[in-house]
């Protein structure tokens, strides 16, 4: 296991793993404060990377998407309303970059992006050795198994299902924020999310996993 005394130890597995840049940081960054710009680049970069990784399943691609998204965010910083949360804006940029990548991959007849997130890349993407607050080792290992299964099943969902699941269950966005990122009516969010959860459940069950008892 990795040494957990470093900065990684700050990430608690049971907490939502997103960092949300606050409005004051945005105002200072827009005013040209170098330290604020650096902090904004770091926090938004981490959030963009995490979302891109969850959408494309490949660290290298996710890094490119995140870097490009942060550049675009900074280029349009003067248009961002500091009164509104920055995250939906940033996530819209990331989502559009991922859609561009998908289109490019399709036009080159490459393998679909989603196939990159198969079980082979799970060890690289998921940080197994971060602390988990589950009560006992058995529960921890069961949850870890389900997390790994879900990650590989997520790659088999279509992009619309995958992105809504990621935004709600992995990124912890509200329905309103999801509607903003996906540019869909609020009423569509619940039905699409439920359809996505159903599909994921079917995929997980198809692997032989049994809820409450593992595989």
């Amino acid at each position, binding site marked *: 296991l990795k040494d957990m005394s470093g900065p990684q130890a700050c990430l608690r597995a049971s907490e939502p793993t997103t960092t949300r840049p606050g409005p004051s940081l945005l105002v200072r960054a827009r005013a040209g404060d*170098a330290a604020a710009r650096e902090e904004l680049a770091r926090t938004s970069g981490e959030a963009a990377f995490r979302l891109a990784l969850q959408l494309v399943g490949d660290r290298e691609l996710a890094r490119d998407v995140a870097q490009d998204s942060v550049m675009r965010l*900074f280029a349009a910083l003067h248009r961002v309303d500091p009164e509104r949360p920055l995250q939906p804006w940033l996530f819209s940029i990331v989502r559009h970059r991922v859609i561009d990548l998908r289109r490019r991959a399709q036009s080159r007849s490459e393998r679909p992006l989603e196939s990159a997130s198969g079980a082979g890349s799970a060890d690289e993407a998921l940080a197994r050795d971060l602390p988990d607050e*589950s009560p006992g080792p058995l529960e921890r290992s069961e949850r870890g198994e389900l997390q790994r299964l879900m990650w590989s099943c997520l790659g088999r969902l279509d992009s619309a299902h995958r992105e809504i699941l990621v935004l709600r269950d992995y990124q912890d966005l509200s329905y309103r924020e999801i509607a903003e990122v996906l540019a869909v009516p609020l009423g569509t969010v619940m039905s699409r999310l439920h359809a996505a959860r159903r599909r994921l459940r079917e995929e997980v069950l198809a692997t032989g996993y049994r809820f409450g008892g593992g595989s």
Partner: protein
Amino acid sequence: MTGSFHDPGTVTPFPEELLSGYLDGALTQQEEQRVRLHLERSPEARAMLEELAALRQAARSTPFTPIEDRQWSEQPRTRATAIALWLGTGLLALCGLGIVVLVVWQATHAPSGTEMQRGLIWWAAGLWASGLGGALLVFLSVLGDRLSDRRHDRYRRVLK
């Protein structure tokens, strides 16, 4: 989406997506009440809700390997360096386009006469100016960022 469940004792189909809304706390009081009643009567719906809750909990607690901190060191730090970078890149692109146009033009029209020669000289001068200007702006942008990095380096004092 309307699911396969029915409110027991009625012919009204139960809108299954309400289970997800219930799980996320996104329903009105009336809808919540409807889901609670449905859950009391339908073991299938209870099982489905428990499984969806397990999936949601597993997703929420999935830890991902974070990206390296140094990843963002190539950010343009100020508006001036960002503008210089965009302008420089634009000029370099313009220069590239100019070269392509020149090559195509020369291939299709053999230059002859003083007017043509003079036009070519101006064209070449424009290409040189935009190429050099673009490269200079990109260089100044990177230099500006590097100097800014040195001023704002968090570890500068530690290293002294």
